[in-house]
C-alpha cells in the first residue's frame, strides 16, 4: 500500500471543480487543474476574471463555496492552517511596511514564519547574490525604487523556503528591465524545485510560463503550454489568442 517513492511525485497544487460565489456573482466557476512540482504555472486573464479569487482560495484567505483541492498535499477546505506553512505569497501591491527599513521588513516577515533573526540574516545573505538587498538594507522602504520593492517583497515571500510560491500580478507597474530580471529570478527558483503559481495580464510574460491557463469570467477557457496553445490556434502571439478567446 505504501510505496510513494516508486510513484511520480504528487502535484503541488491539485484542484477539482473549485467554485467561489459572492451572492449571485460567480467569481470562480468550476475550475479544475493540476500544477506539478517545479512548474511555472501562469494564470492569464483580464481584470476581474477570477485570478486573484482563485489564489486567495489556494492560500487560505478565502473559503471555497464548493469543490475541492490540495496545496502541498493539504486540503484547501480543512487544512488551510497547514497549507500556510508550505507556501509563499506575494500580492500585487508588494505589501511591505513603508516606514520600516529594508532590514526590518525582512526581520518581520521572516519572524512571523518563526525564523530566528540569525537564520533570517543567513538566508538574506544567501539570496543577496540574485536579489541585491543588502546594499540598501538600512533605507526606509518608502524611498525605494519600485523594482527594488518588488525584489524585497519576493525576498519576504521566500525567506522560509516555501516549496510553493504564489505570485499575484507580481510585475504591476514595474519597468521592462526590472520585469525581465524578475522573471529570470522566477525561472531560477523553479529550476531549483519551487513550484510557481503566477497570475498576470501582461501577455509577453506568458512566454516565461511552462503552462498557461487562460481565464475568462471565472472559467478556464484554455490550458496548455504556450507553444501548444499557439500551435492550436495557428497564431504567433499569445495576445491575439487571448483577445480572440475572451471576446467570444
Amino acid at each position, binding site marked *: 500500500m505504501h510505496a510513494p517513492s516508486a510513484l511520480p511525485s504528487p502535484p503541488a497544487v491539485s484542484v477539482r471543480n473549485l467554485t467561489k460565489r459572492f451572492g449571485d456573482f460567480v467569481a470562480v466557476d468550476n475550475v479544475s487543474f493540476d500544477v506539478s512540482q517545479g512548474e511555472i504555472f501562469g494564470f492569464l486573464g483580464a481584470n476581474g476574471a477570477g485570478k486573484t479569487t482563485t489564489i486567495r482560495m489556494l*492560500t*487560505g*484567505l*478565502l*473559503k471555497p463555496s464548493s469543490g475541492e483541492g490540495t496545496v502541498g498535499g493539504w486540503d484547501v477546505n480543512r487544512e488551510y*492552517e497547514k497549507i*500556510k*506553512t508550505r*507556501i509563499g*505569497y506575494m*500580492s500585487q*501591491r508588494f*505589501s*511591505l*511596511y*513603508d*516606514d*520600516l527599513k529594508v532590514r*526590518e521588513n525582512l*526581520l*518581520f*516577515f*521572516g*519572524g*512571523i*514564519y*518563526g525564523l*530566528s533573526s540569525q537564520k533570517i540574516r543567513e538566508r538574506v545573505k544567501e539570496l543577496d547574490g540574485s536579489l541585491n538587498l543588502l546594499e540598501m538594507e538600512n533605507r526606509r522602504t518608502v524611498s525605494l525604487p519600485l523594482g527594488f520593492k518588488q525584489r524585497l517583497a519576493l525576498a*519576504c515571500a521566500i525567506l522560509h523556503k516555501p516549496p510553493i510560491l504564489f505570485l499575484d500580478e507580481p510585475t504591476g507597474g514595474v519597468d521592462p528591465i526590472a520585469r525581465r530580471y524578475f522573471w529570470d529570478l522566477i525561472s531560477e527558483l523553479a529550476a531549483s524545485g519551487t513550484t510557481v503559481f503566477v497570475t498576470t495580464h501582461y501577455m509577453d510574460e506568458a512566454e516565461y510560463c511552462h503552462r498557461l491557463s487562460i481565464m475568462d469570467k471565472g472559467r478556464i477557457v484554455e490550458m496548455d503550454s504556450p507553444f501548444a496553445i499557439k500551435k492550436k490556434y495557428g497564431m504567433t502571439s499569445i495576445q491575439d489568442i487571448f483577445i480572440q478567446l475572451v471576446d467570444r
Partner: protein
Amino acid sequence: MINSRLMPLIRKEFIHIRRDPRSLLILFLMPLLMMFIFGYAIDMDLKHIRIGICDLSRTPASRDLIETLSASPYFNIVVRYSDPRKTESLFTRRIARAALIIPADFARRLAGSPESPIGVIADGTDANSATLVQNYLENVFVSQSLSMSSNGSGMPIRIKARMLYNPDMVSAHFVVPGIVALLLIMIGALLTSVTIAREKETGTMEQILVSPIKPYEVVLGKAIPYLILAFVIAVFILIFGRLWFEVPMLGSWSTLLLFCVFYVFTALAIGMLISTLVATQQVAMMLSLVGTLLPSVMLSGFVFPVASMPLPLQVVSKIIPATHFLVIIRGIMLKGNGPMELWPSFLAMTGVGVFFISLAVKRFRMKLK
C-alpha cells in the same frame, strides 16, 4: 513558540510608533488640550451672571443690597431700570439672565419682619442656569438679610455658595477624572482601529494572514503594544490632572493604575471590533471618535447623572465602559474607595471588554471564511 512569532509583531508595532513622532506628539498633546478645555471652559459654576435691577425702593437698605450683589463674583449688574414692565424685554433681547425687582416698601418691610419679598425673575430657556441663578440669589439674600437684621452687631454670617449647590458637580475635581475616562476610551479605540485599518489598506494584513500565525497572535500582537502606549498616556494625564488641577487622590495609586489597565483593554477591544467593520483608516477614525466620545459624554454619567435618565438609556449606559470606569476613578480619587467597594463596577467594565473582544475575534474569523 508563541513568543518567537509574537515578538516580531510587537517589535514592528513599536517601530511604527517610533517612526511617527508627530502622531505620538498629538497623542500626548491632545489630552492636555482637552483637559484645559473641559477643565476650565466646562466650569459648572456659574459666574458673572448678567442681571438687571429694578429698584423701586430707593432706600439705603436697597442700595446696600445692590452693593453686595455687585461685589459678588457671581453677578454682573448690566442694567438698572425703573419700570418693572420692561423686565421681559431684558430676556428677549438677551441683555440679562435674571432680573431683580425690589419693591417700594422694601425698607419698611425689612425693618418690620425678617421676610422681605423681592421679585426674582430668571430666564427659563436654559433651565439649569435658571435654577442656579435662583439658588445663588436666594443664598445672597439669606446672608444679606441676616447681616441686616443683626443690625450692625458686626457678625455677618458667611455662607459658602459652593457648598450649597451641587457640592461635587461644581469643581474641576469632578470633571478631570471624567476627562481621563473619556480620553482613554477614545485614544485606545482610535489607536487600534486605525492601525489595523492601515494594514488592511496597504495589504500587509493579508500578507500576515497567509503566514502560519494564529488569529489570536495577530490580535495580541496589536493589543500588547497599544495597551502599553495607552497606559503610559493614562499615567501621563493622571499625573497632569493631579498636579495641575490638584485633583485629590484619596485612594491608592496602584489600585487606580491596575483598574486603568483593564479599562484600556476594554478600549482596545472596541477598537478591534471597529476595525473588523471598516476598510479604511478614515472610517475607522470617524467611527472610533463618534462611537466612544458621544456615548461616553452623554450617557456615562460624565455630565448627566445616570440615575436621572429614562430606563432604556440607563440600560444602554451599562454597556458603556466609561460608566463603570467613572465610578471607579471618582471613587478612588475623590472618595478613597478601594477594590472592596468597586468590584461590581470593575466586573461590569471588564465584562463589557471581554464581550467586545470576543465579538471582534468572531468577526475576524468570519472574514477569513
